[in-house]
């Protein structure tokens, strides 16, 4: 009998306490971010709209190696290679179909030149599906993105655009294979 009374009391008080605690939530701060008026903070490495960046000299970074295209799990990048008179490769066309992109960031990881980068912008809604296909002119930005100061050709050991072998940063002179001297 005593046990039953205790159970009844504790059960009733726990229900009442729950109701009271829920009611006290009226005076708490609300967690909602009122989105269109109030933008949430997104970290710089958030994976959103993709951009093609430029090197510090203002030239395109992309060398049309197609690595992003092959790494893309949904096959939404299409790159056409072009070559200028100095032998430097560049993308003649670069197209990303954002209606297929899953924002996985694999392309950014695959890119050897840090050309392709994901940005914290996700407001890409369109009424017309065709508008989700971004061309090179839509993708290219004028800045360096997340990698300031990086220029692929300045560190790569490739002869291109007036820069010869052994002239890159931190690069030793090419070894003369015709001599035995060290």
């Amino acid at each position, binding site marked *: 009998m005593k046990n039953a009374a205790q159970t*009844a009391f504790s059960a009733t008080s726990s*229900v009442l306490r*729950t*109701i009271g*605690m*829920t*009611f006290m*939530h*009226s005076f*708490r*701060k*609300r*967690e*909602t971010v*009122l989105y269109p008026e109030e933008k949430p903070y997104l970290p710089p490495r958030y994976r959103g709209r993709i951009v093609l960046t430029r090197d510090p000299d203002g030239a395109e970074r992309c060398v049309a190696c197609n690595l992003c295209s092959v790494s893309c799990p949904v096959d939404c990048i299409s790159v056409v290679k072009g070559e200028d008179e100095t032998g430097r490769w560049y993308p003649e066309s670069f197209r990303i179909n954002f209606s297929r992109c899953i924002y996985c960031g694999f392309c950014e990881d695959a890119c050897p030149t840090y050309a392709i980068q994901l940005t914290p912008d996700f407001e890409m809604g369109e009424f017309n599906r065709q508008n989700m296909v971004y061309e090179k002119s839509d993708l290219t930005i004028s800045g360096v993105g997340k990698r300031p100061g990086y220029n692929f050709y300045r560190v790569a050991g490739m002869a291109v655009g007036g820069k010869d072998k052994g002239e890159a940063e931190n690069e030793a002179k090419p070894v003369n294979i015709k001599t035995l001297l060290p």
Partner: protein
Amino acid sequence: MMEFTQADVLSVLGTGIKTLVILVGAVLMAALMIPIERRLLGLWQDRYGPNRVGPFGSLQVVADMIKIFFKEDWIPPFADKAVFVVAPAIIMLTSLLAFAVIPFTPTWTVANLNVGVLFLLAMSSLGVYSVIFAGWASDNKYALIGAMRTAAQMISYEVFMGLSLLGVVLLAGSFNLGDIVESQRGLWNVIPQFPAFVIFFIAGCAEIHRAPFDLPEAEQELTAGYHTEYSGMKFGMFFVGEYLGIVLISCLVTVLFFGGWLGPVLPGFVWFFLKAFFFMCFFILLRASTVRPRYDQLMAFGWKILLPIAIVNVAITGAIVVATS
């Protein structure tokens, strides 16, 4: 041949207008409960709820209504068509009929029945048919389980609901709701009849199958219970019917235990509205805070705890009434 005097015609007209106002008011209030519930649930869950359409999201319900009117009204080919169509109408009908005997102010009742309490109980019992028909006609196992649960729940909670009201009736010496309100002039029934109030409130919750007694439509286990197969405006009728139930039970609690329109300074209707609105909000708070019991717990709680308390309450009240008269 009967002669109609001008006074007769006027009184019929007056009743007709009153009926219309109360019907429209009840349905409007039930519809308004939807945004209020969503906003309040939001408040108690530390979020906002719908706050875009109209001032404070109040027009959300209008948008939802427009949407629901244009939805496909689908009747499953395996359903029992006639019963399937009738079911949602019954719940609206019985809930709205029950409003007829509620005295909003001394002059504002549609039917001043001398058996008002019994009429109410009868109407709320009839409501169970709607749910059973819906579950049966849907020919869907979830709907049927939901309907079975409702049947058991409503029939057993009906008993304590009636018994808990007997105390109030004894104190007032009348089944007429208007007389019951008048009898509370000195002291609201909630004080001498506190156990009855608690039982009535719990039973009312179960009667309109609101959380925590929403087993018939337990989303997690039964998809949506008895209205799983319903779509479009038929589903909307069930929905509005449920909110009508909340408004009805809130009005009843106000009338039976909290002195209806009685109150200082403000006009009677305002008092009635404020009290009823408080209970409507309390129903929402209950939904926000309590957990759903298991089915056997629900039954055990009803028959083993509420029923004895209700009977003891009636016995003691009866004894006191006899002793003092």
